[in-house]
């Protein structure tokens, strides 16, 4: 799966979580711009994990602040 495809799929998954309809760019932050609280993060991560059949460990989550970083992290898991 290429990065663009991963990006498209994550954009679909994020929609119900993006309550304020923020325009999402590579630099959009989850905590700051999207105002995700801890419970939202948990549900959102679980949705991505289930869709791509991967694990995003807490250790990896700690490194992800921006949307683009999430796409990279998922892409690196599904491309190998």
């Amino acid at each position, binding site marked *: 799966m290429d990065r663009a495809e991963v990006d498209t799929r994550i954009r679909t998954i994020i929609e119900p979580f993006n309550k304020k309809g923020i325009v999402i760019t590579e630099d959009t932050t989850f905590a*700051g711009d999207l105002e995700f609280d801890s419970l939202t993060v948990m549900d959102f991560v679980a949705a991505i*994990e289930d869709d791509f059949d991967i694990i995003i460990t807490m250790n990896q989550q700690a490194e992800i602040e921006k949307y683009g970083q999430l796409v990279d992290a998922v892409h690196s898991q599904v491309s190998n």
Partner: protein
Amino acid sequence: MSEGIIQADKPPRRTGDTPDLFSKFDDTIALRENLLASGVEDPFSLVMEQVLSPTRAICNGRDTILLGTYNYMGMTFDPDVVAAGQQALADFGSGTTGSRVLNGTYQGHKECEDALREFYDMDHAMVFSTGYQANLGIISTIAGKGDYVVLDIDSHASIWDGCAMGNAEIVPFKHNDIAAMEKRLKRIPEGAGKLVVLEGVYSMLGDIAPLKEMVRIAKENGAMVLVDEAHSMGFIGENGRGVVEDAGVIDDVDFIIGTFSKSVGTVGGFCVSNHPKFEIMRLVCRPYVFTASLPPSVVATAATSIRKLMTASAKREHLWKNSRRLHSGLTELGFTLGTDEPQSAIVAVIMPDLEKGAAMWSALLTEGLYVNLARPPATPANMTLLRCSLCAEHSDEEVETILGMFERAGKAVGII
């Protein structure tokens, strides 16, 4: 406690004073000040001036029924337990002044571990200075770099801190969700070491884990299983060994973690196991090695209490009766509870919000009833809870009195 998920980073709000390392606590300070400004008694600085029995104390000058302690089996004033402590204090002194692996293992520590091995019918028992340290030590030591810890998102703070202290990959799953756990186990790379961490009773809502299925699935997927039975020891299961015993999976779990600070009625923690190499933990587990051992009086009271808990089936029965009566009574009064049926000795009453919760807590205290006020982030799903934990020593009449207090306070505050 569900502390697994890190709160969103907020820019520190600076208030008048010079910003320093404490600025990050400004939000919490403000929350607390607002609560106190509403006129309620401070739920987090109650002092018990006298303790009359496992179920009664003088709190802030008032004779109060205790319904928010973890003294489930009412062992704290048991005459045999108190006598054993007094004897050990006289014979062995007030403290060991040393680590378990140096000068801190006395006869009493050995006897306490013997009592645990008998209680659980397991080969090995290791006593820590607290249950918190038992989780911290065992989890951080056995799950190393490249290993995976799969755990329930509502796990207790000591479990999360054990994860944070170690170097393993941490994979949480939705509370009590068997399918979510299984999916994550199956996604772990081939060959990696796996530890599944569960609790018998989750202390915020008082619900139990579906251990029969979860332990089976964990084993099928090649994981070791650790179950924290802090809130079930002495009470749940035919011999009081916990939800693992009740669910018939005690022989399949690798480690049980427990505490002396609840049913046993003193302080301390432990891990029991049948693993053939378990004893090596005493040398490699830092929260065991680098802290002083429990005082002789404490291990003597613990050992005596544990032995009495083995045969405490009458107390277990009465505690179940109390839990069922409180649960049905509160339901009939119209309160919303954390579980549809009583699953443990904890009955959690869900409050509409923190203000109402604090007002209710305060009204109950005025009535002469102490319960635990639990609020986010310690609670799941940002709930405010009034947590009631029953004791085998609460009499039938006391439980009826408690229900009357809930009715009056609930009406006064406008919750029912």
